[in-house]
């Protein structure tokens, strides 16, 4: 999740075409090389191309998991907490993903646990994104001392290791429901988004169209909502996806440590029980592999979606379409010669 590019990012073709335009900056029109500029979000042409394979794959993966969270508890073959007679049974037709050390059905736990896992992730993502938008955009827009303090705050939260802090925090808090867990996670997860949003707002604030809007009589709130926010949409989305991923990984970690209510099924809780029952030494891979794999897959889905957004923000990140020798030439700094046009004829001489 690298930060976005340094220099204004535009479509490569546009870059070249625009580069021809009166040859660059005029004295005094200093371009700020340290800010990133999202590609015009309003371009339908671009939007179509942004639907890259990665983005679609991410959407499909996430769609499947959302479906799982929605109908999982309904289609689960067993009550996930029901103790069965088959203890530590490997996958079979009765239990597609085998059973736990107490005979519970792993598949049912996985299906039921999806909902809790996703709810906490999305909830934490929403809360954190809200916090980071408020703090980041406000700081960037207002500037001055307030901005200094707000960005110091987010930098502190960024550096302090989240997990140990969360462990201490949840240790003092009585075991709460998903909302409490989500709230605590978002407390440590907002800083990244806030930092990126602030940087972006700071660069947008200096753009001509913001000053032009002021001159056109627009009030401050309208400038934030209608002029700035549309331009941070992509970053907002990216920050949200990143935070959801962070929240899912963190809650799985917390659950693994037994710091959440371990009677409510989630993938982290499954791993907690698997670890407590020493599933590893028992060779019960079907117990700890599925929940971890599910987390990894959902994370991959989020990351793929994030790629799509990143490439939207910075189109240069897209994969190159050249292959073979042409790609090699171009990587070496030699424009490939692909003779598609007819050879020059002896004309007009």
């Amino acid at each position, binding site marked *: 999740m690298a930060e976005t590019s340094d220099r204004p990012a535009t479509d490569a073709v546009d870059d070249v075409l625009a580069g*021809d335009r009166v040859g660059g900056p005029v004295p005094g029109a200093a371009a700020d090389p340290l800010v990133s500029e999202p590609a015009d979000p309003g371009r339908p042409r671009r939007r179509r191309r942004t639907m890259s394979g990665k983005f679609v794959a991410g959407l499909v993966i996430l769609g499947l998991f959302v479906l799982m969270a929605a109908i999982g508890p309904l289609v689960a073959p067993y009550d996930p907490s029901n103790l069965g007679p088959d203890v530590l049974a490997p996958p079979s037709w009765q239990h597609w993903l085998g059973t736990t050390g107490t005979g519970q059905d792993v598949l049912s736990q996985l299906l039921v646990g999806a909902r809790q896992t996703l709810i906490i992730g999305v909830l934490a993502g929403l809360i954190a994104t809200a916090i980071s938008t408020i703090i980041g955009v406000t700081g960037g827009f207002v500037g001055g001392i307030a901005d200094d303090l707000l960005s110091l705050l987010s930098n502190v939260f960024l550096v302090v290791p989240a997990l140990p802090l969360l462990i201490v925090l949840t240790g003092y808090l009585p075991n709460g429901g998903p909302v409490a867990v989500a709230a605590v996670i978002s407390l440590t997860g907002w800083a990244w988004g806030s930092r990126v949003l602030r940087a972006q707002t700071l660069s947008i604030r200096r753009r001509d169209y913001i000053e032009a809007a002021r001159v056109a009589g627009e009030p401050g709130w309208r400038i934030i909502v209608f002029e700035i926010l549309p331009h941070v949409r992509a970053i907002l989305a990216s920050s949200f996806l990143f935070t959801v991923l962070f929240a899912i990984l963190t809650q799985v970690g917390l659950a693994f440590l037994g710091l959440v209510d371990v009677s409510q099924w989630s993938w982290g809780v499954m791993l907690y029980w698997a670890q407590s029952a020493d599933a590893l030494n028992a060779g019960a891979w079907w117990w700890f592999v599925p929940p971890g794999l599910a987390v990894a897959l959902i994370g991959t889905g989020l990351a793929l979606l994030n790629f799509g957004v990143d490439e939207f923000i910075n189109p240069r990140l897209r994969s190159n379409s050249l292959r073979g020798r042409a790609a090699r030439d*171009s990587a070496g*700094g030699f424009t490939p010669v692909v003779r598609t046009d007819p050879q020059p004829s002896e004309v007009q001489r």
Partner: protein
Amino acid sequence: MTISAGSIPVTTRPRAGDPVLEVRGLSASYGLGPDAVRAVVDVDLTLRRGEILGIAGESGSGKSTLAYAITRLLRPPGVITAGEVVFRPADRPGGGMDLLSAGPAELRAIRWSEIAVVFQSAMHALNPVLTVERQLLDVLAAHRRSMSRQARQARVREMVEMVGISPSRLKSYPHELSGGMRQRVMIAMGLILEPQIVLMDEPTTALDVVTQRQILQQILELRERLGFSVVFITHDLSLLIEIADTIAIMYAGRLVERAPSAFLFHAPRHPYTRGLLASFPSLHGDREKLVGIPGSPVDLRHVPSGCAFRTRCPHEMPRCATDRPPLALPVGDPPSADREVACWLHDGRQPPPPSLARPAPAARPEYATAGTSTIRDTRAEQERS
């Protein structure tokens, strides 16, 4: 003048005015397939020794694309789709090499040592994390392996002094220099290997007028001294007329006119050239109302059929929409004028409008020839030492 004892026989030593670079039928696109944008189409150009060839055009004219395609420095998704770029090195008389079919190793050897590029924005063209000296030495390290360390450093000092920078600034990083100084460093870097060709892509556009003028003067002086040829790309035709020997005007990826600069200025043949010339307010005389050119510069994604300029042209004729005019000697001009225009007004079927039929000035301007032998001599001396 001593007769060179170098490898070049005196009799076949290339003279000023011989072609050093010939571009034939060059086409370049962004992307491949149906969505490709054709930025340069079928361009023929000849650069002669010691000459300053100006290429002028607006956005979407393809002038920068042309320059980068010649050196094969066009970035992805840029692709060269047709043509030849024949470089005729002075020390290989008769034979030329096609840069478009050359391999990476050959190209790398020619780059900078024979064809150097001065980029538009020195701010972005210099590596921010290396000192200026390091970046100059880099060139020598890559191309002058046999040179000693001291010799390289001495050469770097000599070059920066030549462009008017104190060698004490060599340890500076690019961000510590002013815009004008950075551009001078770029020029010093471009000339350090005494290349035969220097491509300059808007080298002064980002600078203030006074600095711009100083740098132009410097380029002209250095050319006198070193005898290299220059391809000078700019949108500023008025500037080009002052410094270039020959000017090529591009529109929608094609050449529309090419002529010695005095001819082009006093007697333009293409309506676009004339329109461009009328777009620069004068510093002298009466204030007349000027109109520029109606319409918008062409969008390379939607180039009009036939003559691409016809939609903005005051003299449009029916055939302009169907047939693309070839680049040819305007009927009425003598072949000695060495000029070409791509416009149906000059095919002899009708008298061209008076504004496009002015007689050219009598004498054909000569470009500087003095430096050409000088550069060869210094080369030869270097080889001997």
